[in-house]
């Protein structure tokens, strides 16, 4: 179309992150807009609504300094795109996909629409095989499967950033080496200190070559947060489905993304649903999360590990709630364990990896893994029951066996769940350690593992 180069200088309204331009011709829904403001870097925006006279535009870098007549609005005639290339690995970008490490943008590579397209369900292949995070409790009880989306539900003040950094450092796909493995980090609303923490970690890390970071900082315009995960996922799709890599995408913190979404929705005066979030909140989250998966005929995979801090630790809040409805399980961090100095403070009971059954066991992790995980879960939940009983009747009144269980629970938390920040445990080490802890309990009560497995592993007869 020929209208592309027309510029508009007359704004009708400025409402929070939105501007309304009058007299627009030929602008399409969802297309990208550039806003030139003297003395400021070029800003970007997207058309949210368009009719014969006006276009409503969300401005990603915010509307500060914009006046009705001091800027030039330029419709690009195409949706927002990002240039994707293998060169993105080992680099650091801001939330809009522009480099922040002082080096030029990757020059080669295709331009892709950041919104992606829905994957035809018939083309998906079912996720299988796992990603080793090197963190015992995750690898053992909530194994991360390639192509899965498994969020970490955290809370303010819990060590989720530390955990993320550790996972970025340690994660690997054990059997194939790491040439084929990449990590994409999309951080939304990251505090400057946290960003510094990630940068330093990033620089000291040997594995940094296979990591691409997209950091949107807390003092960056909040609306930019709506773009960050999409840019990151577009890059990930390229790496996974064009280059055949296994990509782990870490999205943190989804709560900040959700706040930005609510802000734009309310500026548009939309009818709110729960807690002021827009009615399309679920669909919007799904448009991100559903970009995880594997595709028939392609070697690569996209695995997502979104992190979200639950407002006020409330799991029924719309952000964790709707996330839980879309993702395939959840890993929940718990405050009480942090207080007892257990890191990572994963609460085993409500945590669940729904696709785990397809990625563990014989030929994948180890044949005893499924039974072992189920036995640990059963025994640990018994510990939980005894603990509440002890609070009522006191520890002296319980049976010897129950005391043994209490001891087991203690060691499980201190030795198995608890792990050093620089400690990487292989799957094999984790499974052996789990047997060691389980062997505190008498053999007779372990009825979820088979006789042969007991024979082989109980008391770690062979491995230690």
């Amino acid at each position, binding site marked *: 179309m020929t209208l592309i180069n027309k510029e508009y200088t007359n704004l009708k309204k400025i409402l929070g992150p939105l501007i309304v331009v009058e007299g627009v011709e*030929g*602008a*399409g*829904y*969802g*297309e990208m807009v550039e806003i030139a403001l003297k003395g400021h870097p070029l800003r970007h925006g997207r058309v*949210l*609504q*368009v*009719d*014969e006279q006006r276009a409503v535009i969300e401005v990603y870098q915010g509307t500060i300094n914009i006046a009705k007549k001091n800027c030039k609005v330029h419709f690009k005639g*195409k*949706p927002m795109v990002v240039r994707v290339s293998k060169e993105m690995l080992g680099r650091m970008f801001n939330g809009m996909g522009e480099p922040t490490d002082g080096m030029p943008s990757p020059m080669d590579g295709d331009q892709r629409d950041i919104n*992606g397209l*829905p*994957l*035809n*369900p*018939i*083309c*998906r*292949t*079912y996720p299988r095989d796992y990603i080793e995070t090197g963190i015992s409790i995750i690898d053992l009880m909530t194994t991360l499967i390639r*192509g*899965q989306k498994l969020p970490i539900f955290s809370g303010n003040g819990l060590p989720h950033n530390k955990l993320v950094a550790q996972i970025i450092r340690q994660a690997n796909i054990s059997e194939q080496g790491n040439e084929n493995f990449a990590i994409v980090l999309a951080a939304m609303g990251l505090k400057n200190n946290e960003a510094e923490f990630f940068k330093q970690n990033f620089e000291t890390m040997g594995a940094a070559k296979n990591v691409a970071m997209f950091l949107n900082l807390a003092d960056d315009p909040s609306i930019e947060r709506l773009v960050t995960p999409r840019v990151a996922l577009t890059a990930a799709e390229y790496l996974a*489905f064009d280059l055949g890599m296994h990509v782990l995408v870490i999205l943190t913190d989804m709560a900040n993304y959700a706040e930005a979404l609510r802000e734009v929705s309310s500026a548009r005066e939309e*009818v*709110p*649903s*729960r807690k002021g979030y827009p*009615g*399309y909140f*679920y*669909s919007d989250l*799904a448009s991100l*999360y*559903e970009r995880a*998966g594997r*595709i*028939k*005929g*392609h070697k690569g995979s996209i695995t997502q590990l979104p992190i979200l801090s639950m407002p006020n630790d409330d*799991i*029924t*809040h*719309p952000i964790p*709630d*709707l996330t*839980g*409805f*879309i993702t395939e*399980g*959840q890993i929940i961090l718990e405050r009480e364990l942090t207080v007892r100095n257990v890191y990572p403070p994963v609460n085993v*009971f*409500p945590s*669940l990896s729904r*696709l785990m059954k397809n990625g563990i066991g014989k030929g994948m992790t180890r044949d005893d893994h499924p039974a072992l995980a189920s036995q640990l879960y059963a025994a640990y*939940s018994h510990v939980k029951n005894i603990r509440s*009983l002890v609070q009522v*009747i006191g520890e002296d009144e319980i049976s010897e066996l129950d005391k043994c269980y209490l001891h087991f629970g203690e060691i499980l938390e201190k030795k198995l769940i608890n792990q050093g920040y620089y400690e990487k445990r292989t799957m094999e080490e984790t499974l052996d350690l789990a047997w060691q802890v389980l062997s505190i309990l008498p053999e007779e009560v372990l009825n979820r593992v088979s006789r042969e497995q007991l024979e082989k592993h109980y008391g770690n007869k062979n491995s230690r």
Partner: protein
Amino acid sequence: MLKQVGKIIMINGSIIHTTGADTLSMMEIVEVGQSHLIGEVIKIIDEKVVIQVYEDTSGIKPEEPIYGTGMPLSVELGPGLIGSIFDGIQRPLQKLWEKTGSFIQKGVQVNALDQKRKWHFVPQKTDGDSIKSGEAIGWVWETTSIKHFILCPPSIEGKLENVVAEGDYTISQTIAKIRVGERYHKLTMVQKWPVRIERPIYKRQLPKSPLITGQRVIDLLFPLAKGSTAALPGGFGTGKTILQHQIAKWCDADIIIYIGCGERGNEMTEVLVEFPELQDPRSGRSLMERTILVANTSNMPVTAREASIYTGITMAEYYRDMGYDVALLADSTSRWAEALRELSGRMEEMPAEEGFPAYLATRLAQFYERAGVVETVEGTKGSISVIGAVSPPSGDFSEPVTMHTKRFISTFWGLDKDLANERHYPSVNWLNSYSDNLDDIQEWWQEHVDHTWRSMRDRVVEILSQEDELQKIVKLVGSDALPDNQRLVLLIARIIRESFLQQNAYHDIDKYASPQKQIAMLRVILFFYDEAKKIIKRSIPISRIQGLAVLGDVFRMKEDIKENQLDQFRGLEDKIYQEITCLVESYK
């Protein structure tokens, strides 16, 4: 070519306003813009026509054209539906893949049914026979187990002429003409029907027989009758989808229609991978040979999600009219309601509760009321049973979708977060679930399985509710403080929960239990209860009963005893009797 009827004046997400389109009628399908996206007319206000578009509208501009089709949103009904997977507006995903690759592009139009495939048609009427709507003119084998009757379409009645001989025909070839007065109606194997309109029913009947699902907590405690409706609400992680899959796999309906409505893509893949490999326990054929999938996952356009429910139920009605029992599973109706909410919001309608439009309840009722048992013109019986999953935010059943759904369904399976956290699956809560079909299907159970079904069922419910009361005391003082007869109730309730209600969807033997096995299991448990009760009265301590070796067998019977070894349950009862007698002897 389609005629341009108007032009676009405003675009807001999937809602588009047009002007100059006076000829468009309500619910008419239109093509939008130069890229010919599919849309539907949903409002006409003065000059302005409001259209919802079934595809992503990015890049669409004001002034672009609108084309009318003159037809409301319709589905194609004919042989070839079974085994297919469609999106929300009945586009076959396989064909879309062949046409556009792994990702779904915009503006692609494909026929729902294969136009070239030939079917072996066998006529059962001849020239000169009179025929009326709903009567079959002949049939084809759609799959090895489904005989697909070619029915005379609704509101047509006349005399047959030019009926073709038995042979292979495509769905678009004329197989007969019907003379209606002076005019002729050409009959092919395919007909179109608008999805938002219920197909006419010849005669309604009351539900009489149960939909056997092989899931014990459903069949025995909270059964669903064929032709009735059920809702299964539950927060995330409570196992809605697994239970839906279990029902889709093992229930005794002839045709399964599974609608993945705004849910995960990987779940549809699971169905696509698993079903072809599983065997229908009754026909021995692959489960895919009785299944139609409608998949509109959460990242596909929200408008098509709204339509997917209607697409599914219209296909269900078509098979019902042939005299089949159809089970329709929708996962999840909450996502459908959210699609309504989103569209309503974009049209700036006045919201009612939690932003949902005021017509939510009406729409829910219209959907569930399309279930039922009917007598066909041919005198056979067909039915549609609807099972809708509901995903209440934060598992709170007082939210609008769950509340309104409860008004229109007859069986309610409330899934429970606490049970799921204990890994008690299916996590159907026995205290707040209910079934209104108990009286309707009592006769069936008495006649086909066991005359004591109802009394056993009622006893189980009573034991479970007694346990609930007792647990409140146990929480305060511990179970040791209770008298032995009450501790026995706790023991029996535990047996019922763990060995009967819990059912492992991934266990080869346990995943499906026939009604006969279910009754036999229950009889063992209640027999144990009665015997134990007798000896408790004779002051034999509960700890001795808890230590009986046979209890281990009881806990494992669901996984140990196969469908073809049901006589072993009798042996288990004998063993209980012997051990208890021994115990009594030792106290003499």
